[in-house]
């Protein structure tokens, strides 16, 4: 028997229409998704990167049956999200996170009891299941405290506990570490890794590059409602011009100097950015031929010139791709 993809999306669109004002208000139309195509296999973690407003949450909400698409088709675990929502809901989990989404006036245990019942967790297993997830997310000690007394990180853990309580096959995590302090964020990533080890397929959205790099072997970059790239991180580096990056910074450069840099061996891309009075030239390199010394030699006469080499980061990839899409 063939295993269906965890996520299969074809030409997916979503338009939000709203009216500002009660009677004769202004009508607004926003295209959040503009024909998304994406396939994600089961059994691993897939990352979706994108800036705010890229359409990540919209896509996650459609995939988790909380929003209907305007057009196209979306299937999760081989089942259509619009027609098979009843089949899908017990099998998927969603963690939207944030301050909202919890009953703040009651304690964590009662929050989980409520959702355990809504997900049909057998009564005989309920308390043990709740105890286990609370322990897993590190909330055992504070399980009987009102949620309104929780820190942001603790609330996030409770969101995750609720998302995994019914042992879903597939878990959607929408920016699970946003707003968390470094320690809580690290604990959350550790928890996510342990879920992957348990065989849960995870679909993670984030705009933290290091998080995507640390957790996701494969990812897609989304910008303005479209998937602009999708691959493994090394291949995405190649896509934006190479694994090596050289940066040259000084108080302005002549056009001729920039052209000379472009002609250096292995330079696949050159980006110029202004930082106050200084200019930074970023070179993506596909080979090892050009060294920082070559760059310095090409730019003589700049007393304040600094040249440094580094590995092309996922952030570079992301910014290049999002910038290209914007242009």
């Amino acid at each position, binding site marked *: 028997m063939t295993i269906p993809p965890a996520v299969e999306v074809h030409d997916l669109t*979503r338009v*939000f229409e709203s009216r500002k004002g009660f009677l004769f208000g202004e009508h607004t139309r926003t295209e959040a998704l503009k024909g998304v195509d994406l396939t994600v296999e089961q059994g691993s973690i897939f990352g979706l990167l994108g800036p705010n407003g890229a359409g990540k949450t*919209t896509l996650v*909400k459609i995939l*988790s*049956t*909380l*929003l*209907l698409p305007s057009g196209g088709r979306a299937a999760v675990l081989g089942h259509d999200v619009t027609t098979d929502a*009843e089949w899908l*809901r*017990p*099998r998927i989990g*969603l963690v*939207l996170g*944030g301050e*909202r*989404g*919890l*009953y*703040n*006036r*009651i304690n964590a245990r*009662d929050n989980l*009891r*409520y*959702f355990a*019942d*809504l*997900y*049909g*967790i*057998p*009564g005989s297993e309920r308390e043990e299941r709740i105890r286990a997830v609370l322990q897993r997310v590190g909330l055992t000690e504070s399980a009987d405290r*009102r949620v309104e007394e929780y820190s942001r990180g603790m609330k996030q853990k409770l969101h995750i506990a*609720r998302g*995994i309580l*019914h*042992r*879903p*096959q597939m878990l959607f995590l929408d920016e699970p570490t946003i707003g968390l302090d470094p320690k809580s964020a690290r604990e959350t990533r550790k928890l996510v890794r342990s*879920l992957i080890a*348990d*065989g*849960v397929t995870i679909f993670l959205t984030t705009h933290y590059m290091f998080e995507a790099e640390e957790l996701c072997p494969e990812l897609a970059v989304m910008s303005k409602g479209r998937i602009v790239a999708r691959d493994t991180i090394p291949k995405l580096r190649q896509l934006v011009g190479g694994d090596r990056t050289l940066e040259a910074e000084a108080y302005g450069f002549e056009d001729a100097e920039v052209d000379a840099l472009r002609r250096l061996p292995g330079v696949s891309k050159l980006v110029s950015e202004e930082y106050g009075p200084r200019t930074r030239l970023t070179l993506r390199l596909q080979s090892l031929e050009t060294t920082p010394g070559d760059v310095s030699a090409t730019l003589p006469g700049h007393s304040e010139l600094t040249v440094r080499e580094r590995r092309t980061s996922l952030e570079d990839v992301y910014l290049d791709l999002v910038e290209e899409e914007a242009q």
Partner: protein
Amino acid sequence: MAHVTPTVSRSRATSASLRLSVLMFLADPQWLIPSMIAPVMFGLVAFELFRGAGHYYLTYAILGAGMMSMWGQTLYGSGWAIGQDREFGTLEPTIGAPTPYLYIVFGRVLWNVISGLIGGAIVYVVVLVAAGTPPPVANPLGFVVLFVFVMLTLASVGVVFTAAWVYTRYAGFIQNVGEFAFYVGTGCMFPIVILPFWTNPIGLFFPPTWALDALRYLSIPGYVGFSWGFWWDVLGAVATTLAYLAVAGTIFHRVERHVLASGDLSWY
């Protein structure tokens, strides 16, 4: 972690929702006003209004004030519970759960019916203490049976009105405007037969109007309500209640579809 797909019991979802409502009620003292303090006020005002009108009018007073209290709790409270879900951002994960939302709403309405009954009981005790004698009821057994049915009619309206809260975050506006009109229009405080004739057909759209008139026929000898009498009142109440429950059954599916299409589940 083994993935086992559970079977969702609808009655369990309803009881979970009921339990949550109780916990939220106990955690938020602002509800003391409509559920505990308002019934005392309603009871005292009704007693003063009807104290010189005869022995059975004490029962009349209790019914009027008690119904006002219960009506407010059942209708207003049920809708408000969903409004709170919007405010807390919990409507989204609740709708995303495998249980049909209608059964979760049943739990909320059930609690509000119970809390309405507590309000009714408070009114009874207030009038009892104020009058110094138990209010007479012509047919106690029939009264109890019909009283429970009146609660069911209130709940059926509550479920339908709750759909409005799921449908739009502006439902509170409609409910605030409508609450007192419903008090009068359904004959909670006094029979609608004393209102101008043109208002009666509006009141007849609501099951409690019929059920309350029947309850007064049963408990107050010589009561004259709608000219068609007790049994037609009962029949009208049963028919309109069934109609409301049928509407609730279909409306919730459509409302759920609407909010998934509009994408405003998390707005408040």
